[in-house]
């Protein structure tokens, strides 16, 4: 399987993040009879966020399967299907509901390959719409990806663009390991260039979204877009920010981050999950432990979600996660004043 981003010139057109995911699912199902999509309301309804759309009608109820509301059972079913030759793709309606399935994801899917001495593999994909910004409040807005990035045996990706949403999903379906894809609800309608043909975005490879010299901003998911917008504004005031979209949390692409920080001497991490014990802590610690430490010319800073369950009120909700202005301010502080 090609493991490269295929540039298709004429074969590239604008489509939404949700459409890109749907296209990847369709192409994977067309190419491989082992692939099937299942989950709550993915069939006739077309998915709670419309991602599966017409797939039920195109591939039939055997390949696009509506399920009871049984997250634990579904995650286990994905495991069972995967270890006996299928390539299941499970949609968990809101990523928050994965908490109901922790047992199967963490104890079974992540460990079976190792626990059985390498004698079984678990090629499953779980798609998880996450993130805040829709007014869905505390139980439907979380960013729990860091929990899973803590588990050896799992892979965790977070696409931020339609291009990566398709490419990472196809790479995940190819992967012989359990891969969790944390999609962002606010991104489903965002548009971007997507090649028509199938292609893979390698799991474990970050993307440098914008080059810069004064500071490295490592961001995930929608925060990568906000960081890019912030960098654009900062450029106007003479601050050159390099923006890295991490894309994969596990296995994390440390070399790309390290190379950048070695150049810029400053690091800011931006992520939507709660700030404490999060992705930013990991990236910061990796830099602090590495030889790049000696190239830091300012404290490492983190911008993460507030230490609070996500609130309902729109102003509060917005205040609970990093916004573009927050990133601009944090970068200014770090670059101009050397303060985290």
């Amino acid at each position, binding site marked *: 399987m090609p493991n490269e981003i295929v540039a298709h010139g004429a074969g590239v057109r604008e489509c939404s993040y949700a459409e890109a995911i749907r296209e990847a699912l369709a192409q994977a199902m067309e190419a491989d009879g082992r692939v099937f999509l299942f989950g709550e309301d993915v069939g006739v309804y077309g998915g709670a966020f419309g991602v599966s759309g017409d797939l039920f009608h195109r591939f039939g109820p055997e390949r696009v399967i509506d399920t009871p509301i049984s997250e634990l059972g579904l995650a286990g079913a994905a495991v069972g299907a995967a270890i006996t030759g299928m390539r299941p793709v499970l949609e968990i309606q809101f990523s928050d509901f994965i908490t109901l399935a922790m047992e199967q994801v963490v104890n079974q899917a992540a460990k079976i390959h190792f626990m059985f001495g390498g004698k079984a593999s678990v090629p499953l994909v779980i798609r998880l719409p996450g993130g805040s910004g829709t007014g869905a409040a505390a139980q439907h807005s979380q960013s729990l990806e860091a929990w899973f990035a803590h588990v050896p045996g799992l892979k965790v990706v977070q696409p931020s663009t339609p291009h990566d949403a398709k490419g990472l999903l196809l790479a995940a379906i190819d992967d012989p390991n359990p891969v969790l894809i944390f999609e962002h609800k606010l991104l489903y309608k965002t548009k971007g260039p997507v090649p028509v043909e199938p292609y893979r975005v390698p799991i474990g490879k970050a993307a440098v979204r914008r080059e810069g010299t004064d500071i490295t901003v490592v961001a995930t998911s929608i925060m990568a877009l906000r960081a890019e917008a912030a960098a654009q504004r900062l450029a106007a005031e003479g601050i050159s920010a390099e923006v890295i979209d991490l894309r994969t949390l596990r296995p994390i692409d440390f070399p790309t981050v390290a190379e950048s920080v070695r150049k810029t*001497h400053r690091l800011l991490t931006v992520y939507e999950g709660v700030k404490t014990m999060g992705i930013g802590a990991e990236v910061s610690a990796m830099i602090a432990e590495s030889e790049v*430490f*000696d*190239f*830091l*010319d*300012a404290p490492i800073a983190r911008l993460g979600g507030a230490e609070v369950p996500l609130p309902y009120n729109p102003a509060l909700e917005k205040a609970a996660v990093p916004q573009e202005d927050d990133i601009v301010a944090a970068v200014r502080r770090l670059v101009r*004043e*050397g*303060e985290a």
Partner: protein
Amino acid sequence: MAVEVILPKVDMDMETGAVHAWKVREGDAVRAGDVLFEISTNKAAMEVEAPASGIVRGIAAEEGATLPVGTIVAWICAPDEQPPARAEPAEVRAHVAAGGSPAPAKPAAPAGAISREPSALRATPLARRLATSLGIDLRQVPGSGPRGRIVSDDVDRHAGEMQSTVASAGARNGAVIAADARVIEAGRPRVRRVPLTAVQRIAAQRLVESVRTAPHFAVSAHIEMQALIDLRARLAPRIEEQTGIRPSLTVLLARIAGHLLPRHERINGSMEGESVCLHGDVNIGIAVDRDGELMVPVLKRAGERSLAELTAELARLRKEIEDRAIRPADLTGGTFTISNLGMYGVDSFSAIINPPESAILAVGRTVATPVGRDGQIVLVPRATFTLSCDHRLVDGVLAARFMRDLREAIEHPEVLI
């Protein structure tokens, strides 16, 4: 919590300053806003006020001492509070300075004496790394970051300053050595650890680089010196009259090299990356020692200037080095170097090329040597010249041709002058 009193920056591009006069004494009670001291800059004097109320303790700046901006000069403490510990002035020892010249008995005034406690020093990892590689004592560097944190720019700025003000800091450099020298614990009293000076560090780096990158080889020749000695004797009175200085053999040799090198452009060349740079000018560096520091001032366009000019120029360079007033421009741009150890009685030696140059001429002493001439043994004054070359640019034949021309010129110098 004690509040620090720093020497503030009160002027644009002010990097150092001095406490002109203290208005308070150790132990005085002050209120925020009271005048603590007057600061003098090269433009004006200004009063500095107390940043907090309390007792003045830990006054750490002599009146008149030049200090980097941001240096803590005192603390405002609570009545029962002591200021945070700082470097002991006792560490500044009089007799450690290279050359053994006795330093003043009281703690030396310069910045080195007012050093921040290393543990309290705030510096970014990059600044620390940079300081280590440049041989800079971070305690001398004013920090521009939050709460005085030193960032890489501060170190860079300081390094630039050091280079350009080596001279004015004459006494200070000695004091830095003094402050940093650590007599190793009792029991092993005969070992002293003396950090390299900045000049020594740079020289060390360049020499290592030279040996690592330039494949050296050397060619030697014994050259009769009588004609040159005669020429110098003949010219000396006039030059001394013009400049007040007798021309040295080294100056004569620099003049000769300056004359010859345009015809030996590779020996006057330098290696830059993958290409050879051939220089239109011949700039002769002269290796000079200053208290164990190797410095190479450069006689620019040596082939085009009179002996008197070169004599005066070399004298000026030597003095400025001695006075630590030499400018970086006078230490750079060389295309060839002469190192003369003849005056120390050395017969011959081979020198390490001063990168990125391609050759260096090592001159031994002139000594009366018996040689056979017309079937007779006669005594002639002779010196051994050894040319070290970078084999990447210069091969044996090129080196030999230069030595042949050098012999010709030294043995028949009149044509040059």
